[in-house]
């Protein structure tokens, strides 16, 4: 933990010695760091707040004073420390864990309604993040009734939540089934996933496809192995 203010080193030294503070009090004389991370008040001082920074410098939590007499509360500080240390609630980043930064290899299985009746489906998808809000990657799917194998890809918009360990993805799918009945498959998916470790996540998928002139609606449950992106 680092404490930051616009105070001079001499003032901070007196303060730290008086209260035997075990962490450094940093002097932000020109308020450049304050301006970048919390703000500056009308009397030319640091706007109080708590900012939690992950190992890759990404800001994962920012709590700022917003009103008169607002201040950093004891409870707020304890909660922030708990989260940073991973001792309570979903840890932000032990080992710089950031689920939305990782490639996911998903294996899903489920069932639904196809043109000829009930069917079972499975898919294998590799999705890589393009920034925070987009994922893209190749996909192979299997349909017991209509398309034994279809190959293609998926592109999805992603809305991360819960400290970036979960997300809702709304995507489009385009595939081609090379085995009879041959044809193109296009569709849309809604995926809700949750990562419970840096390596593994679970997802629920709802998918609506248009294949060979008819519609297919399926739901699936899946598990994903996550890997660090090489870039």
């Amino acid at each position, binding site marked *: 933990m680092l404490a930051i203010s616009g105070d001079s080193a001499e003032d901070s*030294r007196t303060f730290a010695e008086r209260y035997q503070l*075990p*962490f450094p009090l940093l002097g932000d004389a020109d308020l450049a760091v304050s301006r970048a991370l919390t703000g500056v008040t009308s009397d030319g001082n640091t706007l109080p707040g708590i900012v939690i*920074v992950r190992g890759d*410098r*990404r800001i994962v939590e920012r709590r700022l004073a917003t009103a008169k007499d607002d201040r950093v509360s004891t409870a707020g500080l304890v909660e*922030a420390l708990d989260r940073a240390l991973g001792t309570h609630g979903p840890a932000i980043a032990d080992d710089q864990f950031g689920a939305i930064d990782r490639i996911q290899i998903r294996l899903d299985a489920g069932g639904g309604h196809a043109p000829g009746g009930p069917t079972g489906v499975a898919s294998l998808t590799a999705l890589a993040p393009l920034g925070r809000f987009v994922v893209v990657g190749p996909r192979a799917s299997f349909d017991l009734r209509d398309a034994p194998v279809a190959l293609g890809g998926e592109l999805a918009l992603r809305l991360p939540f819960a400290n970036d360990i979960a997300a809702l993805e709304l995507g489009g799918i385009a595939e081609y089934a090379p085995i009879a009945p041959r044809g193109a498959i296009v569709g849309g998916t809604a995926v809700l996933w949750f990562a419970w470790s840096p390596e593994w996540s679970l997802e629920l998928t709802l998918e609506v496809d248009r294949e060979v002139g008819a519609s297919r609606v399926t739901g699936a449950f899946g598990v994903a192995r996550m890997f660090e992106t090489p870039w």
Partner: protein
Amino acid sequence: MRSALLVVSSGCVTALHVTTPAPTAAEAPAFALPAQDGHRVALADELAHGPVVLVFYRGFW
């Protein structure tokens, strides 16, 4: 921890007006600031040990 709480619980903001727009940066700048004992503390060095909690406080009001 108790001593840490003294820092923040002693803060009292009166007539607070924020003069800068709320920061929206997704990443913290790679700053290095002088500590009370004179040595410079770099954020990057602290992050090497794990996540860092930055507590911004007002010493005078």
